[in-house]
């Protein structure tokens, strides 16, 4: 059942025009910035020295771009199922709410992993110039992925609260700011392994809250009109 739910979510995400435009926009901005910075590095000479700072700046740029897009993508993907129709679908499949939640989390995770993997050619170019080791590239991708997944869980949790959509947006971007600042603060104080561990703990906490909340909220149609417009 999970496979069918994930496939359904992935199809909805992949076939949504606005999401496609936004993802193409992200790719365009990221690749343009990468090419421009690479050209600057070649022009400046001393490749191995400049490549090190280039890798760091591209990693930050990627995390910032994806972090900025993530709340919009998650809320938009949630909006593809409006409240009443999702409940009718749930009733029509006899699936438990956590099946749908897990399907949504996994499909968004796959989507973010694909977007992150698009930076691999640039990262490997950095590797060629000796600016970053494979381990550094892996840590960078893993941390960004965990950051995005923590954000995903938080935004889903907020959207499930049934607040007005504007409140969901504001809270989601506030969460982005807090998580982002926390990540920056941690990066200057502790090592990658500790940051990863903290993100994993956050994922477990938010995931448990989400599944508990979803188990209660996604059983019946939510009867307040404002919540019919959203998926939970």
């Amino acid at each position, binding site marked *: 059942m999970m496979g069918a739910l994930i*496939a359904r979510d992935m*199809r909805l995400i992949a076939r*949504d025009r606005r999401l496609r435009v936004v993802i193409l926009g992200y790719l365009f901005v990221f690749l343009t910035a990468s090419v421009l910075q690479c050209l600057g590095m070649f022009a400046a000479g001393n490749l191995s020295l400049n490549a090190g700072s280039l890798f760091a700046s591209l990693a930050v740029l990627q995390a910032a771009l994806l972090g900025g897009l993530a709340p919009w993508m998650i809320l938009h993907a949630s909006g593809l*199922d409006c409240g009443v129709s999702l409940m009718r679908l749930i009733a*029509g499949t006899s699936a438990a709410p956590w099946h749908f939640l897990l399907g949504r989390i996994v499909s968004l995770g796959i989507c973010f992993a694909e977007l992150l993997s698009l930076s691999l050619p640039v990262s490997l170019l950095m590797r060629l110039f000796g600016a970053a080791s494979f381990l550094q590239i892996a840590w960078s991708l893993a941390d960004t992925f965990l950051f995005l997944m923590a954000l995903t869980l938080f935004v889903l949790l907020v959207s499930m609260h049934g607040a007005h959509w504007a409140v969901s947006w504001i809270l989601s971007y506030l969460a982005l700011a807090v998580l982002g600042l926390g990540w920056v603060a941690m990066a200057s104080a502790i090592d990658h392994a500790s940051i990863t561990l903290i993100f994993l703990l956050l994922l477990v906490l938010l995931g448990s809250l989400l599944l508990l909340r979803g188990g209660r909220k996604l059983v*019946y149609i939510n009867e307040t009109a404002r919540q019919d417009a959203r998926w939970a």
Partner: protein
Amino acid sequence: MISIHGLSKMHDKTSVLSDIDLTVARGKVFGLAGTNGSGRTTLLEILATLRKPTAGSVEIDGINAIQSPFEVRSRIGYVPDRHDFHAALTVREFLDFLRTCRNVKSSADNTALPADGWLHGLKMDAPIGSLSRGLKQQLAWAAALIHAPAVLLLDEPMNDLDPFAAARCADAIKEMRSRGGTVVMASNRTADLQVLCDEVGFLHKGRLLQVMKVEGLSMNLLEILTSLLAQQEGSDWIASEAQDEIRAGGTLT
């Protein structure tokens, strides 16, 4: 079998359903008639475990629908009055998704859903968003019958259907009855209720005014409904011209 006792539903301090008692036996088709806003859709949504009643109990095939909604959902097929299918999915993808979720291997496993019947006219690779309302209604029927449910809940099931599709739906209802299934059907088309149902209940302002057997009725259901409503609301509740039109075979809207 469906068993409802003392069922009430409040919404925003307004009573939508009030103290409903109803039993529908296996192998029976029960019709719900009433004016718009009488609570038929809410009653069906409670039976489909989509809404929680404020008071009372609902049992479907001996299972408490309020305590075990997921167990009940595996036994029911529901055709809602409006369907918000995902427009981006194709008919095939949507049905495959439902089959997987319902653990149905293929349409051949389900005698209630012959591919050359229900899916006639549906282009399997067309996006659902491109289908007409009638074809979407056929898809809703296919989705409801895909797992051969024991209980079928139908909310305005004949809306937008062409005569051939409507005939297939009528056959499906009769097939459900013959294999011991239970059907509850709400419709504004009292002629459909009269032809297809064994019993009909009249809902008005959330109250079940009367339940009667259809067989042997000397009046048509619309006339009975008109007279019941006249008793409730006074004889001038509906313009005499409209009453004449109803008696001539029109639809109560």
